[in-house]
């Protein structure tokens, strides 16, 4: 069943080529991208099932033997990330199609939107599947180049300003990543992750620490870890609503994916673990305090995004099975929820004509559906008990308490405080935008009726909200799955053996 492995990369790239040829036929473009991403979702689900029954799947691209050629590897962790990202990208695509249809393609005007979006998807899947450090870099570049186009799409003044920051920071992180690759190759003579796992162990401690830090620095910028996170709230909010949503959901998580891979497979048990814990604490607290100061919903959500990256780092820094397992669970939860919230804010912007909190009001009375759509994921993000956000945080706190020690307890306290402050931040949005009297907004909007919300946009948002709630329902099996993934990651042998086995053949 290894034939499935390259498909999540190939299908979107083919789709991008076809949509690029169909630039004159918007309807055909939409159909092609929807079909392509639906197919990707199907393949990813099938891949997850295969990985769960038969173990990691490895494909040597172009039939080159393993240490020479590029390998694509799908283990539990990759397959799970693929399924979640495919589901989210499909929902966001449906949302943007709905937006394009409703606006007569004024706001998403360019025929370049669909090809870029598909290339972005291909980049994300490449990053998740690559079993080689350089191929990981190529995956990052594919998704970044597509994201440069998407964030500046339309070329308005705001987007150029925000896009400039984003492009320069991303370029810097790419340069750092490439430097790391050069150094790793010079030190170990290979870039194949499975081979590196063995060879890096033999290097002197100081050299390993240096390599580890260069790679962490590069991925830390991508994942928006605290001292390196200032670019994110500046650049995300100005883009189109679906673009912001998919960036918020996926791009930082690709950085986190890389951090998890590097920390577990290449440099297990290194001294960077405590560093990660300290950074996790700072990311959580500084991020959420930033969120509280904001007066614009999109920026507020961008800051909560930064803040909650800290939770996942917390799990990675603990480096025990429960910690990593909860971190992976939290990644799955956070991809879904953060994307949903940005999509809802897109709907709010459309309905109320603004995202600034001082210009919104009374949405709960005007549109109860919108209120429910915001309320559920917002509570989920804050970690209110029945929802998956609570389960993820509970797992992390349990893992932290199990290890013990001053730093871990500080993190447990920090995680609880961040959860409460997140509740405060989203409650503030709820009070100002949804709950207070609608006078201000109606006056600003004039006597016109608020526009009807397109069905596809609402439908795809509902689908994601339901997916977020469903995470609670399937939390048991999902935790089993993330537990397996974490066990495989920490043991290293399943991954390494799978790739080596391919080499013997």
């Amino acid at each position, binding site marked *: 069943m290894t034939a499935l492995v390259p498909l999540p990369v190939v299908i979107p790239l083919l789709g991008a080529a076809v949509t690029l040829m169909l630039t004159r036929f918007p309807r055909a473009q939409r159909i092609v991208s929807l079909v392509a991403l639906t197919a990707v979702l199907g393949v990813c689900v099938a891949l997850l099932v295969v990985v769960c029954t038969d173990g990691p799947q490895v494909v040597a691209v172009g039939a080159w033997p393993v240490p020479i050629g590029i390998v694509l590897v799908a283990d539990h962790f990759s397959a799970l990330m693929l399924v979640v990202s495919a589901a989210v990208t499909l929902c966001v695509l449906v949302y943007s199609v709905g937006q394009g249809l409703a606006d007569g393609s004024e706001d998403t005007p360019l025929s370049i939107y669909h090809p870029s979006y598909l290339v972005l998807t291909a980049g994300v899947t490449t990053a998740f599947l690559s079993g080689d450090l*350089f191929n990981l870099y*190529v995956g990052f570049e594919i998704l970044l180049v597509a994201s440069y186009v998407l964030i*500046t799409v339309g070329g308005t003044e705001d987007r150029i300003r925000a896009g400039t920051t984003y*492009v320069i920071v991303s370029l810097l992180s790419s340069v750092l990543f490439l430097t790391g690759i050069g150094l790793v*190759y010079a030190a170990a003579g290979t870039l194949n992750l499975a081979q590196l796992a063995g060879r890096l162990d033999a290097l002197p401690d100081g050299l390993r620490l240096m390599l580890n830090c260069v790679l962490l620095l590069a991925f830390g910028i991508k994942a928006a870890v605290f001292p390196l996170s200032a670019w994110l709230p500046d650049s995300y909010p100005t883009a189109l609503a679906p673009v912001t949503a998919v960036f918020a959901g996926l791009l930082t998580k690709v950085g986190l994916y890389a951090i998890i891979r590097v920390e577990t497979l290449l440099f297990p048990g290194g001294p960077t673990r405590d560093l990660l814990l300290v950074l996790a604490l700072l990311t959580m607290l500084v991020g959420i305090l930033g969120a509280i100061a904001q007066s614009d919903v999109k920026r507020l959500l961008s800051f909560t995004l930064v803040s909650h990256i800290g939770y996942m780092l917390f799990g990675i820094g603990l480096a025990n099975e429960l910690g990593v397992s909860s971190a992976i669970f939290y990644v799955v939860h956070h991809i879904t929820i953060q994307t949903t919230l940005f999509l809802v804010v897109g709907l709010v912007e459309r309905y109320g004509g603004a995202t600034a909190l001082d210009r919104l009001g009374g949405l709960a009375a005007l549109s109860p559906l919108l209120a429910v759509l915001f309320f559920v994921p917002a509570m989920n993000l804050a970690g209110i008990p029945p929802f998956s956000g609570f389960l993820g945080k509970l797992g992390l706190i349990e893992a932290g308490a199990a290890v013990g020690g001053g730093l871990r307890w500080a993190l447990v306290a920090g995680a609880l405080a961040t959860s409460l402050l997140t509740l405060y931040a989203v409650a503030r949005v709820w009070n100002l935008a949804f709950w207070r009297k609608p006078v201000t907004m109606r006056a600003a909007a004039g006597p016109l009726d608020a526009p009807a919300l397109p069905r596809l946009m609402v439908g795809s948002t509902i689908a994601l909200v339901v997916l977020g709630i469903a995470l609670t329902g399937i939390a048991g099996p999902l935790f089993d799955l993330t537990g397996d993934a974490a066990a495989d990651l920490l043991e290293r042998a399943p991954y390494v053996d799978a790739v080596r086995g391919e080499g013997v053949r």
Partner: protein
Amino acid sequence: MSPNLTYVAVVGVLFAAGVILLLERSLTRVLMGVVLLANGVNVLILAGGRYGGPPIVGTTPEGEMSDPLPQAMILTAIVITLGLTAFLLALAYRSWRLVGHDEVQDDIEDRRIVELAERDAGLEVEDVEDDDEGTS
């Protein structure tokens, strides 16, 4: 194998110049900085591999071949840098068309929030002063 000192020095100079240019405000200079940095990295990768004759079977004995992998990686990196340079140039041009310069600008919303905070702080100070007047 010991690294070639010339390579190391070149990498150092390119990185230093690139970082300085990256700190500038003008997008064109930033672009030059990125190009220098990217070239520095390319030389760094080249320095990490074994040097020798062309890695083609028949022309060079196997033991004296240079390592072809860094060269392949550099080629990929050069292509990526080329694309990004074109994109950044377009961005700088668009910025110049829209606002008449290509300087990287501050975030407006950030400034607004700082102003809000300063105003809040200012109000509190005034309140305190008012109270002082009231009591005295």
